[in-house]
């Protein structure tokens, strides 16, 4: 079996367009990977809540004219209008502009649509029962505050620009977003796995298949267990690359539903005999895709994404998003709380090469991004 390794164009070096045919295990791969590592970034595909921009809701705030009253005002206003459902909101903020006459501003209450409509902004209207002694408070004003606690650093920064919020940072997400979750050697391994997927996609395209490739790797040992290309244009329109790869893993475990003799680039390898890797069930045998990573040249569709949930996949890495994608583009099936398995998804691995697959021309066909 031959592996085709593509040299990534790197700064100050001539881009090589032609693939170089190499023997497996060739030492050259290492330098190729190191050169390539600077040309793509692996980014996390977070949940909808984690990736959305900050949602704002109206609130009434007022300046605190006398700093000495601040403590009492916070106590009394908090008793009248607790922010229990929005614990991330800080009650008081230092004044935004330096020229401001007053040092602090505080949230009085969230503005219900009714209050907003009435335009009832006077202190007397907001505290009709006299629960708050308004000494030291200025005229209330309407402002916008973040509706939800920030889940990521970018959300925190955006939210704080509207009103101060508390933030319990998830260090792993922050590192992932800044692109430093993985070491260079981990990225090099990712690249070689995605190169296999790209290669499989090209082999598939030669058989007039949709140019999509998939590879499954045992997370613990780093061993490639299956490689596949899309077969939907063959005998079964549901045989997308991910579905083929899942079935090839089943074949490697002595199961499987289909035969792939017409598709020599759809292959599987026996899993390690030795015990002790994370994918093992109690009796030392692998259990579907537990503990395995899947590399896909493009984001999977709803069917494939849910198939990966059913297969208990460990992590998914894909090259480029797709219009029908269900891991970040249209849905976030991997983070769905109602499903019984969740997994991490990363995109961007070998992005340019994965994107260029879409331009492979198949005779008599126009390439389009179907699910």
């Amino acid at each position: 079996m031959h592996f085709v390794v593509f040299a990534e164009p790197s700064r100050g070096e001539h881009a090589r367009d032609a693939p170089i045919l190499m023997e497996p295990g060739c030492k050259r791969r290492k330098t190729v990977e190191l050169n390539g590592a600077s040309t793509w970034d692996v980014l996390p595909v977070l949940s909808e809540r984690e990736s959305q921009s900050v949602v704002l809701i109206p609130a009434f705030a007022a300046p605190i004219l006398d700093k000495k009253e601040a403590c009492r005002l916070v106590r009394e206003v908090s008793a009248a209008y607790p922010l229990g459902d929005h614990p991330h909101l800080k009650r008081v903020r230092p004044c935004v502009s330096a020229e401001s006459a007053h040092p602090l501003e505080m949230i009085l209450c969230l503005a219900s649509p009714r209050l907003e409509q009435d335009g009832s902004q006077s202190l007397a209207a907001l505290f009709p029962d006299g629960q708050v002694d308004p000494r030291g408070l200025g005229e209330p004003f309407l402002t916008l505050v973040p509706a939800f606690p920030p889940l990521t650093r970018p959300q925190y920064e955006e939210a704080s620009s509207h009103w101060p919020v508390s933030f319990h940072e998830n260090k792993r997400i922050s590192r992932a977003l800044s692109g430093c979750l993985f070491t260079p050697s981990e990225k090099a391994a990712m690249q070689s796995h995605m190169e296999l997927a790209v290669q499989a996609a090209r082999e598939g395209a030669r058989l007039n298949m949709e140019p999509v490739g998939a590879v499954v790797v045992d997370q613990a040992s780093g061993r490639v267990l299956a490689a596949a290309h899309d077969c939907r244009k063959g005998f079964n329109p549901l045989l997308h690359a991910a579905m083929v790869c899942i079935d090839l893993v089943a074949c490697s475990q002595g199961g499987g539903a289909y035969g792939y003799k017409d598709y020599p680039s759809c292959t599987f390898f026996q899993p390690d005999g030795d015990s002790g890797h994370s994918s093992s069930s109690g009796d030392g045998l692998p259990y579907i895709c537990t503990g395995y990573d899947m590399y896909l040249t493009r984001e999977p569709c709803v069917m494939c994404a849910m198939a990966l949930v059913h297969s208990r996949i460990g992590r998914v890495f894909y090259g480029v998003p797709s219009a029908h994608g269900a891991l970040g583009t249209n849905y976030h099936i991997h983070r769905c709380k109602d499903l019984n398995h969740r997994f991490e998804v990363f995109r961007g691995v070998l992005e340019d090469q994965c994107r260029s697959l879409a331009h492979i021309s198949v005779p008599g066909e126009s390439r389009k991004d179907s699910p």
Partner: protein
Amino acid sequence: MEAEKGRAVTAGEREAWMDLAVNMAKEALESGEVPVGCLMVYNNEIIGKGKNEVNETKNATRHAEMVAIDQVMDWCRQNEKEPKEVFANTVLYVTVEPCIMCAAALRMMSILWRIIHFLTDTGEPFQCIAGYRSEEAVEMLKTFYRQENPNAPKSKVRRKECSK
């Protein structure tokens, strides 16, 4: 509503298909699979029969509907029919509401006409008739989950529960 293209479906015929789908589910249960069974009916003829085959194939995507779709594809090849036309006029009888994967697969195969399943309807954009013999279907599922999935990594599950 009750008529497929061309021919009417009698209540008796439909009951008979329900029985067959339930029997497929029972077969699945007897062979240690999650008890789900389905039928695909085209022009009052059964052209696909599926039961859950996940444990047998070690492939978690081998749900009854996926197995039946394969059979319909074979049937189309043997009878030189256009799958698109066949699927568009096929009724699916299934003992449990299809999962997201199967619903997506069914949509890709253009089964838009009618799905009859035995459990609750969540408003999928298919014509759905839900709730037939649901107690029987639920009872089978309960039986399966009482005996535990023989293929699931048990020790790991227990470890997780302990560490909670």
